[in-house]
C-alpha cells in the first residue's frame, strides 16, 4: 500500500510539474531560511552555557542614578574587590581588567627580530580565582601561577601564533605594551567561540598594581573604569534578590562621597550576552533579545507563508484530483486511507524540499557571517539543527497537508467521478482568501521593516555629527614617557608633508564608543555637580583637526597639564547657563583631586557617541599623560599613498610599536554594525517573503485562469474586451491586497517605531514609507499575475468553449 502511495505521489508530482516546482521552491526557500535563522538564534543563545557553573556565575555591575540620569557600567571600582571578599565571604570573586587593545612583543631571539602583535581583544589582567568560576583546560601550568606578578598564561593558538608551536611556549618571555615584561607560566586550550570571555593572553592581576597610571588603575572608590570588572560565583541555592539586598547595603557603606546614587548589583551570566545596558563587556559582541525575537518571528512568518502557498495550491488543484479520489472511494478506500495517501504526498514534497533546503542552507552558511556573528566554521548539522529540521518538516506537513487532505477525502464519490466537483463546491473560498491576505500582510510587513531600517541607517550614515570625521587617520600609540617625549618631533615631521593638514594627540575622537566619566565641581563650589561629565583629552590642535566649531571663546593654548578647558553646549545648558559667553572664565574641577581650571571656549554640540545616545556633557582638556592616540587630518585624494608615508614615519619614530591606524569615519560606521546587519536581514527576508508570495500568487492565478477559461470564453463571445477581463482577474487581488495592507500597516508601525526608539536621533515614521510599501506590493503582485491574466484574456473563445 505504501509503495503504491509513493508511486502515485511521484507520478502526480511529475504530471503537475509547474505546481510541484512552485510548491517545492517555496518550501525549500522557506525551510532553508528558517534553518539558518535557527542556527543564528541557537548560536547566540548558546553563549557561556558550556560552563558548568553557568547558573551560579554573576557579573557585578554598577548603576549610577543622578537626577533623571540612570547610567550603567559593567565596571566596578578597584577597592571594591577586597571589600566584596569581606562582605560576601561565601562567594568566589574574580577581578579582571580587560584591555581593548594591547601590543604584545616577542623579544628578539635566535634567528628573529622583535615580533610585534596587536591584540584588539582577549588581553586581560585576571585573578587566579577566575578559573574556579570558568572551566578551562590547562595544557601547561595551572591557575596558581597567576597569583604571582609578571606572569602570563596564553592559549594554544596564540602560542602557535607567537612561537610556532605551543609545546615550547612555557617559560618564554613576552612584553606587553612595551612596558611590562611577562613570563609565560601556562598554556590553556582555546576558548570556544560562543563564550563572552574569549581570553587568550591572561596576565596576572597583581601585575596591574605596578602600572597604575598606564591602565587607569586607581585605588579610589570614586574612580570607576568599565575595563575593571568582577565576576563572582555564588554557592547554589543563594537567591539573587538576597545578594542584591546585601550589595545595596554594601554600596551605601562604600560609595559615600562625591558620586551619588551608585549601586552594585548582580547580572546573571545567563543575561550577560543579551543585556544591552552595558554594551560590550568582555566578549566580541552582545545581542539583544529583541533582535533574536525579531529574527525568530521572521522565521515563523516565512514558514507560515510557505505553508500557505502549499495549502492554496493544493486545495485549488484538488478539483483536478477529485476523479481519482472518487474512483478510489468506489474501489473501497476508506477516508482514513485517503487522508494518509494525501498526507503521504505532502510528506514527500516537504521532505524533498527539506533536502533541497539543506543544500541551500549549506551553500548560504558561509555568508551567514554577514548578517550575524556566527563564525564561518560553524557546521550546519548538529543534534539541535537536525531535530529542528525534522520538527519543522513535521509541522509543515501538518500545517499544510491536513486541510487539503480533509477537503479532498471528503468528496462524495458519486459526484467526484462525474466531475461535478468545482472550485466553488469544495468551499473554503473565504479561507483561501484569508490565507492570501495573511501572505500579503506578511510580505508587506517585511517590506515596511526593510524600508524603515534602510531609511534609518541611511539617515545615521549621512547624519551631521557636528564635526568633520572624514579623512582623519587615528593611530593608537602609548603613553610611556619615551613615547610622550617623541610627540613634538613626530608632529613636526608629519606636518612637513603637504598632504597632512593637521596633527593632534588625543585621548578619544569626538564620536566614539568610549565613555570616560567623572564627577566634577563648578565655579569653586564645595560640592560636586549632580551629574556626571564625560571627558575627552587632546592637545591644542584637537579642534582644528576635527573641525569643531566654537559658539563662544576658542581653543586653549598648548599645555602638558590641565590649565584651561573647553566644554560643549550641553554641559553649560545642564549647568543652567543660557548664554555661552557667560560660561567663559568660570572654573571647573574634574574629580576630587583635580585642579581648578577656567573655561576658555564653548563648542557647538557634536555627537559624542553613536546616534543611539543623547549628546553628553563634555569637557575637552589638555593633559599630555593620557594622549594615547595620534589623529592626523589628511587632504583627500592620494589617501592610500599618504597613509603609507605616515605609517613609515610612525614606525621609524616608534620602532618598538606595531602600527595600527584606522580612519575615524570607518570606526563610527562600526557603531552600527548590528543595526546594519538587521537592515540587511530585513532586506534579505523581505526578498524571500516576496519571492514565496509571488510563487503562491502566480500558482493561484494560473489555477484561476484554468478554472475561468469557460467564463472568459463566454464573456468574450458576448463582447468583453481584453482589458475588462484582466480587470476581472485583478479586482479580487487588489481588494485582498488592500485588506492585508490594513493589517500590515499598524503592526509594521508598532514594530518599527519600537525599533526606532533605540535611536535618540531617528527618522520620522511618516506616511511615505507605508505608501511606498503598498505601491511596491501592488507593483510586484501586478507583475506576477499580469502576464497570466493577459494571456488568458487573449485566448480565442472558440478554443475555450469547444472543450466543454
Amino acid at each position, binding site marked *: *500500500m505504501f509503495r503504491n502511495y509513493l508511486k502515485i505521489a511521484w507520478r502526480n508530482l511529475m504530471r503537475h510539474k509547474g505546481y510541484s516546482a512552485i510548491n517545492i521552491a517555496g518550501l525549500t526557500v522557506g525551510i532553508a531560511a528558517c534553518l539558518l535563522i535557527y542556527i543564528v538564534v541557537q548560536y547566540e543563545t548558546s553563549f557561556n552555557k558550556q560552563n558548568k557553573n553557568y547558573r551560579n556565575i554573576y557579573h557585578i555591575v554598577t548603576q549610577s542614578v543622578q537626577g533623571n540620569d540612570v547610567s550603567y557600567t559593567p565596571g566596578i571600582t578597584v577597592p571594591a574587590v577586597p571589600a566584596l571578599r569581606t562582605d560576601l565571604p561565601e562567594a568566589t570573586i574574580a577581578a579582571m581588567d580587560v584591555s581593548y587593545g594591547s601590543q604584545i612583543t616577542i623579544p628578539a631571539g635566535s634567528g628573529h627580530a622583535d615580533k610585534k602583535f596587536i591584540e584588539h581583544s582577549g588581553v586581560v589582567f585576571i585573578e587566579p580565582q577566575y578559573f574556579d568560576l570558568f572551566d578551562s583546560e590547562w595544557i601547561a601550568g595551572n591557575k596558581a601561577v597567576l597569583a604571582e606578578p609578571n606572569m602570563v598564561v596564553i592559549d594554544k593558538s596564540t602560542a602557535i601564533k607567537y612561537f610556532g608551536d605551543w609545546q615550547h611556549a612555557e617559560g618564554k618571555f613576552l612584553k606587553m605594551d612595551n612596558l611590562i615584561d611577562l613570563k609565560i607560566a601556562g598554556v590553556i586550550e582555546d576558548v570556544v567561540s560562543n563564550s563572552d570571555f574569549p581570553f587568550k593572553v591572561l596576565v596576572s592581576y597583581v601585575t596591574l598594581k605596578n602600572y597604575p597610571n598606564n591602565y587607569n588603575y586607581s585605588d579610589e572608590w570614586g574612580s570607576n573604569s568599565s575595563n575593571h570588572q568582577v565576576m563572582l560565583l555564588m554557592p547554589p541555592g543563594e537567591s539573587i534578590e538576597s545578594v542584591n539586598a546585601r550589595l545595596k547595603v554594601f554600596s551605601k557603606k562604600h560609595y559615600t562621597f562625591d558620586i551619588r546614587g551608585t549601586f552594585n548589583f548582580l547580572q546573571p551570566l545567563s543575561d550577560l550576552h543579551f543585556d544591552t545596558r552595558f554594551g560590550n563587556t568582555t566578549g566580541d559582541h552582545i545581542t539583544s533579545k529583541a533582535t533574536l525575537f525579531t529574527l525568530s518571528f521572521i522565521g515563523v512568518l516565512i514558514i507560515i507563508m510557505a505553508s500557505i502557498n502549499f495549502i492554496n495550491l493544493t486545495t485549488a488543484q484538488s478539483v483536478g484530483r477529485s476523479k481519482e479520489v472518487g*474512483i*478510489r472511494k468506489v474501489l473501497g478506500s476508506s477516508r482514513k486511507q485517503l487522508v494518509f495517501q494525501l498526507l503521504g504526498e505532502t510528506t514527500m514534497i516537504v521532505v524533498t524540499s527539506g533536502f533541497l533546503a539543506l543544500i541551500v542552507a549549506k551553500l548560504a552558511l558561509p555568508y551567514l557571517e554577514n548578517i550575524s556573528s556566527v563564525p564561518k566554521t560553524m557546521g550546519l548539522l548538529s543534534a539541535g539543527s537536525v531535530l529542528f529540521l525534522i520538527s519543522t518538516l513535521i509541522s509543515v506537513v501538518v500545517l499544510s497537508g491536513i486541510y487539503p487532505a480533509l477537503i479532498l477525502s471528503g468528496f462524495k464519490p458519486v459526484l467526484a*467521478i462525474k466531475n461535478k466537483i468545482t472550485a466553488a463546491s469544495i468551499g473554503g473560498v473565504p479561507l483561501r482568501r484569508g490565507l492570501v491576505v495573511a501572505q500579503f500582510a506578511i510580505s508587506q510587513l517585511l517590506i515596511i521593516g526593510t524600508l524603515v531600517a534602510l531609511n534609518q541607517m541611511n539617515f545615521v550614515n549621512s547624519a551631521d555629527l557636528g564635526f568633520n570625521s572624514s579623512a582623519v587617520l587615528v593611530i593608537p600609540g602609548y603613553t610611556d614617557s619615551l613615547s610622550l617625549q617623541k610627540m613634538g618631533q613626530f608632529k613636526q615631521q608629519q606636518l612637513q608633508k603637504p598632504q597632512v593638514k593637521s596633527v593632534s594627540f588625543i585621548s578619544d575622537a569626538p564620536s566614539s564608543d568610549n565613555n570616560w566619566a567623572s564627577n566634577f565641581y563648578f565655579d569653586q563650589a564645595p560640592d560636586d555637580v549632580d551629574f556626571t561629565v564625560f571627558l575627552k583629552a587632546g592637545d591644542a590642535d584637537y579642534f582644528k583637526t576635527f573641525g569643531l566649531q566654537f559658539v563662544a571663546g576658542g581653543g586653549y593654548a598648548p599645555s602638558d597639564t590641565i590649565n584651561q578647558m573647553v566644554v560643549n553646549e550641553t554641559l553649560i545648558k545642564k549647568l543652567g547657563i543660557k548664554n555661552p559667553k557667560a560660561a567663559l572664565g568660570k572654573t571647573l574641577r574634574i574629580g576630587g583631586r583635580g585642579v581648578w581650571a577656567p573655561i576658555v571656549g564653548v563648542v557647538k554640540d557634536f555627537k559624542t557617541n553613536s546616534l543611539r545616545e543623547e549628546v553628553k556633557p563634555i569637557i575637552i582638556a589638555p593633559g599630555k599623560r593620557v594622549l594615547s592616540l595620534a589623529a592626523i587630518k589628511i587632504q583627500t585624494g592620494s589617501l592610500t599613498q599618504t597613509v603609507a608615508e605616515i605609517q613609515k614615519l610612525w614606525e621609524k619614530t616608534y620602532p618598538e610599536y606595531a602600527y595600527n591606524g584606522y580612519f575615524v569615519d570607518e570606526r563610527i560606521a562600526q557603531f552600527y554594525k548590528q543595526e546594519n546587519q538587521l537592515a540587511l536581514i530585513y532586506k534579505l527576508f523581505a526578498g524571500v517573503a516576496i519571492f514565496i508570495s509571488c510563487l503562491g500568487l502566480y500558482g493561484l492565478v494560473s489555477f484561476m485562469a484554468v478554472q475561468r477559461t469557460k467564463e472568459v470564453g463566454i464573456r468574450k463571445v458576448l463582447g468583453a474586451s481584453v482589458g475588462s477581463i484582466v480587470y476581472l482577474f485583478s479586482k479580487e487581488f487588489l481588494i485582498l491586497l488592500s485588506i492585508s495592507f490594513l493589517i500590515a500597516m499598524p503592526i509594521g508601525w508598532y514594530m518599527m517605531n519600537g525599533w526606532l526608539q533605540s535611536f535618540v536621533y531617528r527618522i520620522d515614521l511618516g506616511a511615505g514609507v507605508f505608501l511606498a510599501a503598498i505601491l511596491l506590493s501592488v507593483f510586484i503582485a501586478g507583475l506576477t499575475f499580469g502576464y497570466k491574466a493577459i494571456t488568458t484574456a487573449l485566448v480565442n473563445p472558440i478554443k475555450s468553449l469547444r472543450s466543454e
Partner: protein
Amino acid sequence: MLSLQHLSKYYQAGGNKTFVLNDLSLDVDEGEFVSIMGPSGSGKSTLLNIIGLLDEPSEGYHYFAGEAVHLLKEKQRSAMSRGYMGYVFQAYHLIDELTVYENIETPLIYQNIKGSERKALVADILDRFNIVGKKDLFPSQLSGGQQQLVGIARALIAKPKLLLADEPTGNLNSKQGDEIMELFLKLNREDGVTIIQVTHSEKNAEYGNRIINLLDGKIESSRVLNHQ
C-alpha cells in the same frame, strides 16, 4: 440477494420534493443478469448507485445479502461495498496515473490482501482477459474497448457477489460493445456473477435475463427473457 422495498429518493427544493425514485420495490436473486432501461432522468443511475451503496435512499428498506442496509452506518456500508461490489462505468474511470496492472491491483490493496497473493490474482485475470501484454501501459495508451476491459477486470478482481455496470458500452463502438456484452454473458453463465446493468440499448439489454423499464422513478414494466 437484493431486496428494495418502497424505496424513495428525493431532493428538497424550496417547499417541493423532487422525486428521483418514487416508492420503488425490486428483488434480484443471485445469478441474475438484470438490465435497467429508461429515458434520461428516469432514475436509472440513482437506482444503481443506491444498490451499489454509493448513494443513500431518502426512504425505504434496503436488504442486501441478508443485511438490512438502511440500518447500517456509513463505515459498515463502505466495508460491505468493498467486500461485495464491483463497478463498471461508462467512462471507465481508470486512474490515469496508474498502469493497467496497478489499476487492477488497487481494490486488492484496499482489502489488505498480501503482495504475493495480489500478484497471483492480477496475473490470473490479466491472462483471462488476454491483456497481459498491456499490463505496463497507462490508460491513455489504450483504446476505449481495452480501457473498459481493464475496468471490468478491475471490477472483478476482488471476486464481487454483484457486478454493477452503468452504461458499460456507452462510449464504445458497436463491435467493442458486443464483445463486452459477450463477456458479461460469459461471466454470468459460467462464473455465476450476478450482474445489474443500466443501458440505453435495447440490444444490449437483451443480453440479460430480465429487463426493467423505469419511468419517473417508478418501475414501468418488468420483462423476463428466456434465453435457451
